[in-house]
Structure formats: C-alpha cells, structure tokens
C-alpha cells in the first residue's frame, strides 16, 4: 500500500486552487512537487500535514486520514522554522522531550537521564549537518539562513517521522549554500530512508533532489491546478541529462 494516497482532492478559497489531484507516494521515495508561484504546491503540503482540509477528496497517510499535524509527518518551512527563544540544542531536542514527557514527567530523574541521551544524539545530528559543537548554545538569530535550515532539518529528523515535508526550504538561501543543503538532504535521505516530499519552484533543484518530480499547473485561468506531469527521475540523474529534463518540465509548465 502506498504511504501517501491523495484521491481526487480539490481545494477552493475564493477561486479554485487544486482540482482533482490524484497522487500516490511509496515509502522511501523522494518526491519533488514543482510549479509556479500560487499553483497550490504549499496547499498540497498543508493538506498532507493535516493543517488544512480539502473541499472534496481524501488524503490517507499510512491508511489513516489525519485531521491535524502530528509527529508522523515532519515539517521544514521556508521561514520561521526554528523556535527563536530556544538554543540550537534545545530546538533539536524539543520534539523528543515534549512527545515523551508531560509536565509532571519533566520533574522526574528519568527525564534528566533521557535528556542527557537526547543531547548526545543532538550533538551527533549537529556533526552530521555540518555544525560545530559550540553552535549548540547559539540562538537561531545568531545563525546564518543556511545554518538555520540545517538545524531545522535535524530538528525534524530526530523525531524519526515517516514523512518529511519541506516547503521551499532552501529558496531563501544563496546558490552556494543551497547546493550544500541539497547535498545534505540527499545524504540524509539515503542514510535514513525517510519519505520526503519537497516543494520547490526551481526545476533544476527538483531534478537534482527527487526520485520523482510532480508538476502542478493550471490548464486555464480560473481553474484549479492539476497534476500535469509525473516524471520519474533516473537514479542517479547525470548532469548531462538535466537540460533535457528541464526542457521537458518547463515545456509542460509553459503550455499549461
């Protein structure tokens, strides 16, 4: 059974946003959702998160319909991805701490033992995402944009979600940092096997990252976006193949 099943989903605000979306995503896939600004990519992500409801259709994650976000689906937004009042270390350990211990549980010796383990784990993640141990005590506003997104990824992955949903997570970064982050997320995906749904409007990024690229676009003004192309990306995707695929993806978007 596919991990994510989206059946005939439509969303409408003042005008239609998504119309008749049908997508199935298998466990372990790295799917990039590509489309122009305002085509409903982020809406699709929020539907899978459960923070928004479709006007019609069903979304099942692991066979269950979710009505609010929970720890089965990790989330890395473009902005505001870290809690500004917590240090890097506390941001990373926040998830396991709140999900394993309630208010009273936090007063027990078991909490402090577990906290030590979690901190050790957090330092391991810091090393994997390329941050130094001394960065652990910094607050988010003392980090660069790229470092913040690295921490956000570690924060999401430490809770071991079934799916990681990333909403234009690298779009505010400079090209160099962006490339480093693309490599990092590819490596983490290969190491953890987490299913990743990555929303972007950058065709090259989608091809470099995904094992599959889904293009959302409107057929005509006033209509909701549909899946215009569902393209498996050859693994590994060689640099010389990218221009041909970009051509194909951009033609679909341009025609739409």
């Amino acid at each position, binding site marked *: 059974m596919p991990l994510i099943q989206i059946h005939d989903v439509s969303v409408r605000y003042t005008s239609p946003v998504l119309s008749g979306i049908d997508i199935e995503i298998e466990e372990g896939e790295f799917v990039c959702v590509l489309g122009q600004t305002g085509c409903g990519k982020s809406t699709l992500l929020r539907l899978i*998160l459960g*923070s928004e409801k479709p006007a019609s259709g069903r979304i099942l994650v692991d066979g269950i319909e979710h009505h*609010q*976000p*929970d*720890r089965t*689906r*990790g*989330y890395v*937004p473009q*902005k*505001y*991805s870290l*809690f*500004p*009042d*917590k240090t890097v270390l506390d941001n990373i350990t*926040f*998830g*396991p701490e*709140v*999900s*394993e211990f309630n*208010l009273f549980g936090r007063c027990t010796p078991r909490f402090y033992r577990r906290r030590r383990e979690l901190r050790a784990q957090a330092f391991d993640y810091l090393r994997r995402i390329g941050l130094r141990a001394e960065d652990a005590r910094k*607050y*988010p*506003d003392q980090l660069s944009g790229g470092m913040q997104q690295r921490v956000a990824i570690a*924060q*999401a992955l430490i*809770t071991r*979600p079934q799916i990681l949903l990333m909403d234009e997570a690298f779009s505010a970064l400079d090209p160099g940092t962006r490339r480093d982050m693309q490599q990092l997320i590819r490596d983490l995906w290969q190491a953890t096997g987490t299913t990743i749904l990555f929303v972007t409007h950058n065709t090259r990024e989608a091809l470099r990252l995904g094992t599959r690229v889904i293009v959302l676009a409107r057929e005509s003004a006033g209509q909701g976006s549909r899946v215009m192309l569902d393209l498996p990306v050859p693994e590994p995707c060689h640099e010389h193949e990218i221009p041909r695929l970009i051509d194909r993806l951009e033609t679909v978007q341009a025609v739409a």
Partner: protein
Amino acid sequence: MSFALIHAKPGRTWSTLLSWTLFAAGIAAYFYVSQARHRANPEDRVMPTVTQMVRGMYAAAMQPAEDDEQQVSGKFFSSMLWKDTKATSRRFFYSMILLFPAVLLGLHMGLFPYAGAFFLRFVLFFDKIVALSLLPILFIAFGIDELAKVMLIVIGVTPTIILDTFNLTRGVPAEQTVKAFTLGAGDFDVAYRVVLKQIAPRVLNSIRLNLKAVMLFLFAGEMIASTDGLAYRIALLRRHMGMDVIIPYVLWVALLLFLVDYGMRLLNRMLHPWFRES
C-alpha cells in the same frame, strides 16, 4: 545646518547634552519663577523654594504621620513617606499579580478559537468602558476598602493587557505552531512552551508601558477613598496648599515608577536573552 538633517549623527557629548537640556531648562525656569514670586511675596506657597522643599521632604521622610503618634520620630521606617509608599506599593503589587490571569486569558483567546469566540467581543466592549466612570459603582459594590481600588486597576488595565496578549499570540507565525505539532507537542505544550515563551518579552514590555495607567487608576482610588498612600497624602496636602511636600512627593512617585520600569527592563533582558527589540 547639518544638525537638522535626517542623516545627522550627533556625537556622544552632543547627545548627552541635548538629552539633559530640557531638564536643566525646566529646573532653571522653576527656580527663576519661584525666586521672583518669593521676592514679590515672601509667604508664597504655590512655588516653594528648594530650601522649603528639602525641609518639607525631610519632615515627610523622618517624621511619623499625624495619625501614627506611637511611632518613633527621626527614623525613615516610621515616617509618613515610608508608610504611604508601603501602602501604595502593596496595592500596586496586588494589581500587578492580577495582570497575570489577564495574560493567560489573552493567550488562550488567541490560540483556542472557542475561547476567542467566547471572550473577544466582551473584552472589546469592556475595553471601551471608561474605568473611572465605574468608580462610584465600585465603591458601592466593593466598599471603600482595598478591594475597590484594586478592582479599579483591574478593570482599567486588564482589557488592554488581554487584547495586547491576544494580538501578540495571533502574531506568532502559523509555521511555529504547525512545526511544534509535527514534533509531537500537544495543545498545552504549544500554548505554554512555544507561544507563551515567544510572546513573554513583548507581554512584559506591554505591562511596562501600562505602568502609568496602573498608577493612574491607583491614584484615583487613593485620592477618593483612602486613609494612606502617596496619592492620599497628595490630596490631603492639597487642602493645606502644602506644595513643599507635594512636589517632592510627585518626584518621588516618578522615581519609583522609573525604578520599577528599569527593573522590569533588566528582568526582561535577563529572562529572555534571545529577545532583541526590533
């Protein structure tokens, strides 16, 4: 004329000089007019001289209040000033404690849609009621004891704090709450460990900015129905034209409020080192 430009950069000395100029001008103007009035009428009580004010303040700070004759003379802690400061501070402290439930209510209204729907319209309406117009009703309902004065402050200031906290809560980006849920947080974790912690420094600032309103309502209550307190004393001395004590009392109140404000700013910086005012 570079000093009149937007891009002008006054140096440290200039900034310090400019910031004290109006104080110096105010004090100089007072002394000048006071001297002139005393030359015309040595018995003038409207603008006491510095010597008169020092003498008046010394008496207030070192002599017991008229109704406290068992107290020892010559000690600050038996003095009229100390007794009044203590009474006003006690009421002020109770009022500040009562602002915390207001913060929690604002937080819940901003986060939990049913709480928002239940309270918002009422608080918005309540905010428009002029608290001082309720004074007679409060004195009838709660008597002329402490409760009426504290209630006056609560009614006057809490709607502002509730609405401010509500707006601050609504201002926390949705990404933060969604993210917290995806990390396994429950509703109350999101409310108290994510949102409250993020808005806390701004709420503290909001309370700081409302300190003057708190004191205003407190003074109104004390002036009308009280037997002690700084405002009671000022009202009492007004009847005897005791400007030599009223003016130092007013300055004393301003100093106390300045110290509370400064203390709250330090506390905010200490509790929230991550917070930088934009």
